[in-house]
């Protein structure tokens, strides 16, 4: 799972550098969450993206689209080669997720809307008594949006326990450190009637544990506060708000980023082999 997360990161950086635009920081911080969801937890069929029984993910922080597309390609929704069309003319891989891309559930980008979309999808599941699960990944910055809290209150009032939200708490937004006081983020979600779990968002075992706990929860939705590092995996991007929305500036910086990520992939592959396994089949 960790190894897949680093593959997602490497693709995301290649895509963003290829497009000369995109959002590396927040794409890198959610790689483990995406990896666990697509390669361990979610019941999906990449050959049948609209399978009615599938689990659903809404990437509310749509600017992290590069990592979502990488995860979808690695899972087999579309060819990995297509990733390099990201943000280019006539591509299916729009700057922010668009509904017609295989595996993308709904359009996101303007922040604070994705949670409401996920709530609607969860509500449809409840009306139809389906057992699919709905996940949303929102940013910490999105917890400044009023609509996030409208949706949170609706979800708990309607007991949508089929809904799990990951708050990617990397502590930075476009203009730098979080602009509003979100130090009591856990209490805020708790006050809105949610089951709250705090984890290290880069620890795959903790992510799996949180999802399993959320599945056992009845009567209320679960918010997983995932403590993450913006720019995780590329040393010069980590905790650096400059890389919220800027690609590597030059070939050297790009190569450094790829070298660091590839070294981590190789290290994790060796570890898997030394434990008698083989690196996960991803495409």
């Amino acid at each position: 799972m960790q190894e897949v997360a680093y593959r997602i990161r490497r693709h995301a950086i290649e895509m963003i550098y290829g497009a000369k635009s995109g959002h590396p920081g927040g794409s890198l911080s959610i790689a483990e969450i995406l990896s666990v969801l697509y390669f361990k937890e979610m019941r999906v069929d990449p050959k049948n993206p609209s399978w009615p029984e599938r689990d659903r993910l809404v990437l509310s922080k749509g600017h992290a689209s590069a990592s979502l597309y990488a995860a979808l390609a690695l899972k087999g929704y579309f060819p990995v080669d297509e990733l390099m069309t990201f943000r280019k003319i006539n591509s299916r891989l729009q700057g922010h997720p668009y509904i017609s891309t295989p595996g993308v559930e709904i359009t996101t980008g303007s922040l604070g809307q994705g949670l409401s979309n996920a709530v609607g999808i969860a509500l449809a599941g409840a009306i139809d008594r389906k057992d699919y699960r709905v996940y949303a990944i929102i940013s910490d910055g999105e917890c400044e949006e009023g609509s996030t809290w409208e949706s949170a209150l609706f979800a708990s009032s309607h007991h949508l326990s089929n809904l799990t939200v990951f708050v990617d708490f990397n502590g930075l937004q476009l203009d730098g450190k979080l602009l509003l006081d979100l130090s009591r983020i856990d209490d805020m979600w708790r006050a809105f009637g949610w089951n709250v779990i705090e984890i290290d968002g880069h620890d795959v075992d903790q992510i799996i544990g949180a999802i399993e706990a959320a599945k056992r929860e009845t009567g209320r939705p679960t918010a997983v506060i995932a403590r993450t590092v913006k720019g995780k995996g590329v040393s010069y991007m980590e905790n650096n708000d400059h890389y919220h929305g800027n690609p590597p500036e030059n070939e050297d910086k790009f190569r450094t980023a790829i070298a660091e990520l590839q070294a981590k992939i190789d290290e994790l592959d060796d570890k898997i082999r030394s434990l008698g396994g083989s690196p996960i089949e991803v495409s």
Partner: protein
Amino acid sequence: MSVQSVKMNALRDAFGSELAKIGGLNKNIVVLDADTSSSTRSGLFGKAYPERFFDAGLIEVSMMGIAAGLASSGKKVFVAGFASFMSGMVYNTVRQSICYPNLDVNIVATHAGITVGEDGATHQMLEDLGIMAGLPNMKVVAPADAPETARVIDAVANDRGPFYVRLSREKVADVTEGYDFKLGRGLVMREGGDIALISTGILLGETLEAADKLKKDGISATVVDMASVKPIDADLIVKVAKQTGLVMTVEEHSIYNGLGSRVAEVLSERQPTPLKRHGIYDVFGESGTAQELLKKYKLNSDGIAEVARDFVEAMRK
């Protein structure tokens, strides 16, 4: 026909009963409202099908996103509320979550226009036709009376959203009984040779009465009901412009970006014709009874006739 014998009905009542009727036929319909269900009449559906009705609370912005999530999961969704809060307030969510992914969400906005009356400018939505018609994929309809409202809701139920249906609060005379509604088609209610009066929404009845008054002054008017604002019936606009040589639009909406602007676009591209856009002249509304306000803003039959008469006379000079 004397005024007393005309049936008066509210469009929202027709909406509520039609939706409740359709709800029995189509189990896939889900309805949302934001604490206005007794006023919008969506509550009639809620009473009949509580398991598919959600009075969401005062969360208009998120309600649109929730509607999108329901629609992306295969539901046919109706969202009801007051026009002020179903257009400007929620614009960005309607844009990104509903129109961009082209989802089957159908907004029924009641209490539009100046005839909201006593509540005043905050609740008198006069800009919504423009706000909504500017969105790709969005279809915009403003029926004239209760019978047309029922037909429009029926058409929306059998079509695929997104739709924005604009209704008003007041009871108005049933004037479209016996007609059909077809998206993108206007209705010729009366034919005349001197001017074409094109109205959208509930001012059709006043416009028809205005045509009667104009007749006494020797001006014969064509009257068109243009409920379908987007797509608009461009061919019919061109046709009546050719027949009369003068066009006037009537709406309880700003003269900017509403019916008047749409008709101006059609005429200037296809049939340049002198045009008078009559409506609200770039101001906010105010408190008063609906009738007082219609009189003050020259949107009752006397006012419409006066504006039309002045326009015809000015053009004859």
